[in-house]
């Protein structure tokens, strides 16, 4: 390999930072779910790289302060991935490791699904699917009306896109040309009971978003450079809202969870826990 090729292949500081945040996010998310004895590992693993790219490189939230009116907002509309959300905050240093590790524990702030009164960085309480997307749209409109240049990002699950409210919000965002809104879909092709295609098919998915008036970009949701490029494209698209359809693998990072819907809401124990720890780099 030539020196130029080696330099080109080396990760940029941004990519390296997001990659490290993603690794820590996965560790803390699995640890939190294990300690809780319940939770949603599959969908937390599939969105870890998306969350890491957003928080490490895209969102402008100075000091992780949810009181700053000029901050960018991130809404986890697929609220069941809370283990990953709490984990990415901890990886960023916005909250202590106790927050992801106290997942679902009594008398803590770490509700099974994000509660904004407990954890203000949640921006709004989510977990009932479709609702975070509508709230994110309202936030984006509110910021635009006040001429605050902040942007709003929201992550939806693929199964979540079977909710009618998602398409109500999608129609409204395009109608009002809300270009400071970027939706991302964690398209891991699996939902609670089975594959999307067997429960309620979403395809042609990008076509649907485009028909609703959105700028739609499809990408590999585990490839950090692709995520950063797509986020830049979304920010540059001023004509209306952008959706990033992130093709992902449910359970990504833990081999036996990958592409297996049985790990939508299951907890690794014993040998499987040890295997997960080893694959995720030990520090679980």
């Amino acid at each position, binding site marked *: 390999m030539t020196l130029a090729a080696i330099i080109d292949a080396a990760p940029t500081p941004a990519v390296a930072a997001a990659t490290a945040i993603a690794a820590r996010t996965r560790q803390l998310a699995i640890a939190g779910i294990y300690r809780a004895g319940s939770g949603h590992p599959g969908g937390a693993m599939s969105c870890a790289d998306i969350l890491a790219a957003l928080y490490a490189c895209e969102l402008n939230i100075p000091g992780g302060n949810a009181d700053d009116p000029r901050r960018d907002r991130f809404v986890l509309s697929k609220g069941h991935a809370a283990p990953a959300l709490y984990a990415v905050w901890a990886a960023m240093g916005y909250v202590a490791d106790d927050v992801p590790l106290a997942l679902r524990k009594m008398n803590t702030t770490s509700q099974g699904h994000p509660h904004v009164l407990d954890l203000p960085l949640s921006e*709004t309480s989510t977990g009932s699917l479709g609702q975070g997307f509508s709230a994110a749209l*309202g936030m984006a409109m*509110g910021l635009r009306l006040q001429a605050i240049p902040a942007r709003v990002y929201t992550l939806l699950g693929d199964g979540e896109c079977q909710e009618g*409210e998602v398409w*109500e919000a999608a*129609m409204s965002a395009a109608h009002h040309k809300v270009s400071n809104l970027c939706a991302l879909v964690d398209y891991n092709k699996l939902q609670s009971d089975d594959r999307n295609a067997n429960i309620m098919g979403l395809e042609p998915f990008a076509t649907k978003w485009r028909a609703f008036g959105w700028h739609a970009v499809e990408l590999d949701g585990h490839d950090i450079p692709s995520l950063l490029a797509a986020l830049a494209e979304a920010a540059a698209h001023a004509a209306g809202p952008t959706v990033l359809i992130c093709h992902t693998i449910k359970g990504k990072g833990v081999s036996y969870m990958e592409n297996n819907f049985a790990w939508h809401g299951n907890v690794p124990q014993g040998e499987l826990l040890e295997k997960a720890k080893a694959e995720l780099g030990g520090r679980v």
Partner: protein
Amino acid sequence: MKLDKLRATRQGYGDGLAELMREKSDVIALDADLAMATGSSAVKKEFPDRFVDVGIAEQNLVGMAVGLSLTGYVPYASTFAVFMAGRAGEIIRNAAAYSKANVKFVGSHSGITPVGDGGTHQCIEDFGSMRAIPNMTILSPCDYNQAKVLVKKAYDIKGPVYIRTSREGVPEITDENQDITIGKAQILKDGEDICIISTGFPVSLVLEALEELEKDNINAAVLNIHTIKPLDKETILEYADKCKKVLVVEEHNVLGGLSEAVAAVLVGKDGISFDRIGIEDRFGQSGSKAEVLNEYGLTSENIAKRARNLLAK
């Protein structure tokens, strides 16, 4: 009562909202293609930048209102009660009440008085569903003036509020400059023989019934419960104790409505007779106003009759 001035609480909502928006630059109105009916059209022209029509999409109506509130706005979102409390009810629960979002939800065309529309549109369960949600305040004005006042008072509550309005005009009962307090019953008439408790549209029927009762020298007290939640238990108990006879009149299912809430306050109190007029757990239906009100017992004659029966016990 000024009988020549029939105006609906939904009109009071629109006019009150317009006045509020002139005073408060952070108020924003949302509707779901029913602005002409809910009254919110009163602000559409004057404040085009602070009026959002989300189209016929009530879930997104509530969700967007929550999002707007999180950027500092005080949203007033309106549609028919059946679509607000019913269709979007779970969004009100999870996106708004659970987070104490500062959003005002207005359900118009409540009860059975949208008589033409029939059972699909006659919302008889909104108090029940909204009452059972923690953090909610529920307001229920009895006339145009009171609706205007409550719309403005709702602004001062930093949290979710449900305001129930009606389609039908009612006589002017309360003053334009009335001094009422959220959470405190309004004593429309003092009395000691029987306490009649009501809210919203039927309050005017109760006042009509008083004329009948006075002929029999029955001195009834009338409490207008403009705040369904938090309920003014203290005043209800005071009047129950004084009158010993309590009749509740409501345009709502007796399950989950005001009568059930009052009955719960009276549990364990000795020597008090209780009766209620409301929708006896069945759906509404189309008809003329007189036919429908008569079918469901919401007439001044029936109120007077039931009051006399209660006194005869």
